[in-house]
């Protein structure tokens, strides 16, 4: 069991070296913002870790986000992913496996033995970083503590069928608009933009009785960026309440209010119009009113990760509030896997997960870490 000689665990030689020569007392499932931040925080404590990512790239969903600064930083945190990847590349004790899926876990003393299998999937989208090594074959990892950082999934806007997503041309999610803006501009000749908030959030009927917390800031910054990129464009913001993000945000919000139309009502329907999607909403006089836009952008909420039930079962965790993950003995949760969190909050929560994992390693008499071939 304690044989530390190089063993043929993966397809290529490099993999053998980096898995067996270093102790990886903490296994981090998920290589997004929270997973990377947890690995870095552990490294700052002097603890090595192994990040396991099911996709081909590290950085998670936030890697596709765009910078929402005009001339001044909007504090959206999107560039923090780049920071984390850069820092991670400078920390040799940090290991990562991509295209690897944790499929089983068994308690071993105070720690865990986790089975990883290679995940067939799409090829990496951006040039591979030195850190991004795909898992070759099935692998057993013995670890003192596990950090779950599997992120969230975005609400499927098709479930709010009246809002036209997937049916009406010109209706897109805020995430899709973000991708478009990241590539450099608004789609086509979009000049009249409508944002619909709380799609899949604050919704008892859907069983989602929570605020997704990030969407107000996210959507308004996107709207502001769109107006900046296309100076003539008009933005209508359909919302219930605008959430608060601190002192600097309030000043920004006051400016946004001056430059955009804020309507405190949620449209009941979006249908195809003559020149674009047609939104039906309650006008100021309490009557249904129709207005045509070029783009209707749905601010879709954050949902528990797809893997939450499977991981809860694997590690024997009790499901948390609203279906998000909660921790257990030797299992910690970081980032939006534990509840809706912004990028900055995910990074901070990773620090706490790392600290708790380290404390567990000391108090739980974790077994010496070991990697074995299954």
């Amino acid at each position, binding site marked *: 069991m304690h044989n530390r000689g190089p063993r043929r665990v993966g397809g290529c030689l490099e993999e053998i070296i980096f898995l067996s020569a270093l102790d990886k007392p903490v296994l981090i499932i998920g290589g997004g913002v929270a997973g990377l931040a947890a690995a870095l*925080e552990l490294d*700052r*404590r*002097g603890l090595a870790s192994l990040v396991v990512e099911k996709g081909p790239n590290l950085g998670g969903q936030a890697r596709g*986000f*765009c*910078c929402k*600064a005009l*001339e*001044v*930083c909007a*504090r*959206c*945190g*999107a*560039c*923090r*992913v*780049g*920071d984390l990847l*850069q820092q991670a*590349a*400078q920390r*040799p004790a940090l290991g990562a496996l991509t295209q690897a899926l944790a499929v089983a876990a068994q308690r071993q003393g105070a720690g865990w033995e986790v089975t990883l299998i290679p995940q067939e999937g799409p090829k990496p989208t*951006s*040039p591979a970083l030195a850190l991004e090594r795909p898992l070759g074959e099935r692998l057993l990892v013995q670890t003192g503590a596990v950090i779950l950082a599997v992120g969230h999934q975005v609400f499927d806007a098709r479930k709010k069928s009246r809002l036209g997503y997937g049916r009406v041309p010109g209706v897109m999610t805020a995430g899709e608009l973000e991708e478009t803006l*990241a590539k*450099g501009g608004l789609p086509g000749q979009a000049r009249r933009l409508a944002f619909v908030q709380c799609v899949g959030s*604050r919704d*008892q009927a859907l069983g989602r*009785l*929570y*605020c997704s*917390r990030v969407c107000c800031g996210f959507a308004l910054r996107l709207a502001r960026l769109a107006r900046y990129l296309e100076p003539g464009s008009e933005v209508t913001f359909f919302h*219930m*309440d*605008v*959430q*608060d993000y*601190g*002192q*600097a945000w*309030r000043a920004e919000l006051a400016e946004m209010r001056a430059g955009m139309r804020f309507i*405190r009502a949620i449209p009941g329907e979006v249908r195809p119009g003559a020149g674009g999607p047609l939104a039906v909403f309650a006008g*100021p006089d*309490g009557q249904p009113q129709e207005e045509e836009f070029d783009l209707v952008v749905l601010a879709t909420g954050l949902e528990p990760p797809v893997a939450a039930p499977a991981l809860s079962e694997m590690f024997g965790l009790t499901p948390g*509030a609203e279906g998000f993950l909660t921790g257990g003995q030797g299992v910690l949760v970081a980032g939006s896997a534990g*509840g809706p969190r912004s990028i*900055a*909050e995910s*990074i*901070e*929560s*990773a*620090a*706490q997960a*790392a*600290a708790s994992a380290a*404390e567990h390693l*000391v108090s739980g008499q974790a077994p010496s870490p070991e990697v074995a071939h299954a």
Partner: protein
Amino acid sequence: MPRPTLCWVAAPGLEGLEPPALAMAAGLDLDQGGALEAAVVTVPEVQAPDKLRARLLGRPVQWLDLAAELGGGGEGHRGQRAAAALSRAAGRASLGTLPPLYSPQPNQRVLVAGQGLAALAAARQAALLGHPVLWALSGDDPAAAGAGEDASQVAGLAAGLPEGIELAPQTELTNLTGAGGSFTAWLKGPQGTARQRFGAVALAPGGAYRAEPAPPGLAPDLSRPLSACQPASLASAQGWRQVAILAGVGQPATAQGFARALATAYALQAQPGVQVTLLFREALVAAPQGERLYRQARQAGVLMARLGDGEPRLADQGRTLVWQDQVLAEDLELAPDVVFLCEETGAPWPGFLDNNLLWPARSRLLPEHARLDGGRTARAGFYVLGALRGTPAGEDRLAEAAAAVHDLHDLLGGGAAPLPAVRTLTCARCLTCVRVCPHGVPEHVEDHIQPAPAACLACGICAAECPAHAIAPPGWSTAELMEGLACGLAAAPAPAMVLMACGQSAMPAFAELSRSGHVWPAGLLVLPLKCAGRVGLELILRVLSLGAEGVLVAGCHEGMCRSVTGNLRARLATGQAAGTLSDLGLGPEAVSFLHMANNQPQALAKAVEAMYARLGAVE
């Protein structure tokens, strides 16, 4: 001058280039395994094999991430660009600056000043990581919770305090100087004031509730702070029938404050005969369980009333609140028996940080800044936690304290950049460096400039601003940069242009483009910097005088510079350079500045292209 040797470490992205030919083109010896005087290595330091690193120990080395600089194009094109980049690195290496062999050890002691969850968590984590901790408590009890904190959570943490925490009850931090690795703190306790040395300081005063201002004109006997309704049964005892709660009316509320108002409204509404009206501008439901609390309160029968700007108006000698209902568009009036005002937790900004020449203004020390999270401030090794920072009680405070302790552990364990070198003979003691360093590194001690041992991030602002060239992080002096640029420009084909690239924004974006095969102009020479703040007027003008046709400075967007003002200083310098050029009758378009983030590579590519187009137009 040592003659640098080219150490070629096989790295992805350099295929097709022949080391001997490049070494010759750049005027370097190729590594044959013999003795080395100085070296240029073509990969980042972390990727170099241990054997090479051991061989290079104690010798001047330039680590050049060549793959990040080259980009695509034909072999000849890439060869030309590689030769220029290698020449640049060789020039810098040939000056042979080494990090100081001796630097003072950072003090490992940690001072935690304050009380409550944040202070407790910080003290605990620092002690667990082996730092001797002095915890200056404002009261006597380490298990005392601050306002809004869960007393049982605090008590639970305090029950198992690790070894290595020295408690100093009833002690107040009254003054502080220094930076990471070397702080001096004045602590006022029951026995008087004592001066002590620390490596890092975390300030985490316990929070207190502060009620929002009442609407002007409200009858003073009506209003009370929210905590004055404990217990809820008070409502029946007082015979209140109509209770109003204002949340986020006199000033913006936070999600935590609003959640507390909702919970209180719910409890009061359950009292027989009581009708609660909650008046607010926005329902802030982003706190944990916020939306559930909001729904529960409505279900219990709490009336929700949204106010517009300037509301509520007051009537009947300040005893009646008037506002327009947003659904009905007609005025509603409420004559409440009592008005509760929502409370937020906070702590006063300590006096010694204000009106003190040694500390920057709050907006500069603790800007709302994406890169200054985890309790950090601009001053390395100094942390502001919990209520003073406005962090919500609960898990967020624990996370912030943990992040802060990880940061200080890293800094004190050697994570900071090597100490800036100070040339005492040239230094005029003008204290410019003390004034401009955002991290508080240089300190004026006994007529010397003495850098704090674990605080420097090598941003180079001091080197850019020092009028006597007396201070610079090792390897970042103007002389070294200019030697490198002179060699690089000599090797770069015309028209040559220099991109001064911030390491937080422009350089990662540049590397990403290079790795994905973007073809850069042959004469584009990159100067990778830690921070754009290293760029000064002098550097730009000297680069132009060396024959560069253009200089593009690329730094972070305003408000995201890790060194707070590095980007603004660089922008200012660029503007000054343009001004100087037009004074001289030369084209000011030869210099420009770009604000960008590391995820905006296209903006950088466009700016480089535009600059080249302008250079072509000028010619």
